[in-house]
């Protein structure tokens, strides 16, 4: 069973969001997502300063077998992409909610429809783990 921390918000496309004290939002992929993708070997994080629209592909993560887009869960300006993932993409597998964060974004609007931990858990149990 994959982990779903109760203090985060989630999307239907398996991203998580954490609002930080300064109002910026940290974004990553869920434990469920990293498990489904398998061993990750390449991550391309968004550049600082980039403006993203909600739902826009803003990062690429590749496992041995396939490449996947990660979608910006809200509109905003990218403050920074996680530089550590370039040399250690496996951090996304080992610590998806901590050291494996993908990007920090300064929101320019309200996020779209987000899921609570309970709702996300429900979604993944319907999809199968």
């Amino acid at each position, binding site marked *: 069973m994959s982990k779903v921390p109760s203090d985060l918000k989630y999307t239907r496309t398996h991203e998580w969001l954490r609002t930080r004290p300064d109002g910026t939002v940290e974004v990553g992929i869920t434990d469920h997502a990293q498990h489904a993708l*398998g*061993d990750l*070997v*390449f991550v*391309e994080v968004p550049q600082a300063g980039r403006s993203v629209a909600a739902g826009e592909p803003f990062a*690429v993560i*590749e*496992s*041995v*077998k396939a*490449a996947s887009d990660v979608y910006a869960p809200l509109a905003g300006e990218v403050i920074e992409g996680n530089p550590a993932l*370039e040399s250690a993409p496996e951090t996304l597998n080992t610590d998806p909610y901590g050291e494996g964060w993908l990007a920090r974004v300064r929101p320019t609007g309200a996020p779209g429809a987000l899921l609570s931990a309970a709702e996300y858990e429900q979604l993944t149990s319907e999809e199968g783990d």
Partner: protein
Amino acid sequence: MARRTPLFAIHQAAGARMVDFGGWDMPLQFDSLIAEHHAVRRAAGVFDVSHMCVVDLEGAGVRPLLEQLLANDVGRLTVPGKALYGCLLNERGGVIDDLIVFHLAEQWFRAVVNAGTRAKDLDWIRRHAAPFGVSVRERTDLAMLAVQGPQARSSVAAQLAPQAAARALTLGAFVGAEIDGWFVSRTGYTGEDGFEIMLPAAEAGPLWHALTAAGVVACGLGARDTLRLEAGMNLYGSDMDEDTTPLESGLDWTVALTPGRAFIGREALEAQRARGVDRKLVGLLLEERGVLRAHQRVIGADGGTGEITSGTFSPTLERSIALARIPAAAHGTVQVEVRGKRLTARLVRPPFVRGGKSLIG
């Protein structure tokens, strides 16, 4: 409904991620594809390859039949047990399938063909076998395990009775023997030493359990693919098919154009060679970050284009490698279109890895 090997329930109980492969429900990975890959390079791994199609060919006309069907020279098989890799070609010289054929006895050969091409291969072989009076029998009663890695042979030997173990350990490269009811051969698809074992279906589960209990790592098709690509081995349907010839697929060494040999596709290959082979299959090593994947476009320094046929991240080299079919004149470096960007890759001669060691300078 996908077909299942005799080990299906064991894979499911182990929590393997299953995938459809050539019409079979097969394990893609058990725990970590990369860990499985490294286990084979550094110690030993075991693969369920029971989906492979084993076909016994028997009769007085079996040699002339194989002379006609195979682009490689079955005449090289003079000692029982010896194996030969080669291609079945159509009249255009295109590859119907690649296979291994074992010489079991003077009138008995055993072919191992791909799962995804099983029906057309059997049809093709049966059609040509009839005039030679050769019986074609698919051995669906057999399962097949591949045990690969530097410790693979000793791991298998530990499961055999002393005399059988001694016999297995004397097998030379690309040779097999019937040992206590199992056909054990020193063959594989990983670039490592090891055995492939054909055995009665009911005995496959106990052997699988015994090997994994002894520390041999259960491996899925995901690791099988990264291992074979590092070893520079082609995958049928990706790196060659009915519209490409062995000469365009890095398989010149499997084509025996000895004078006097008549095999299906020979005339087409000779015509192609005479007018010049304009495409070649090469190895690519990505010089930048990213992952090469099948069907990405390759652009040579002179503007000639080609395509990646197989690409992956190489766990051993920790960078991306690929096989690509490109213009014969290309050399040096090429550009590859990867997700909207052009990345530089260097042409290298496969294999990339052999016997656990990088061959990339």
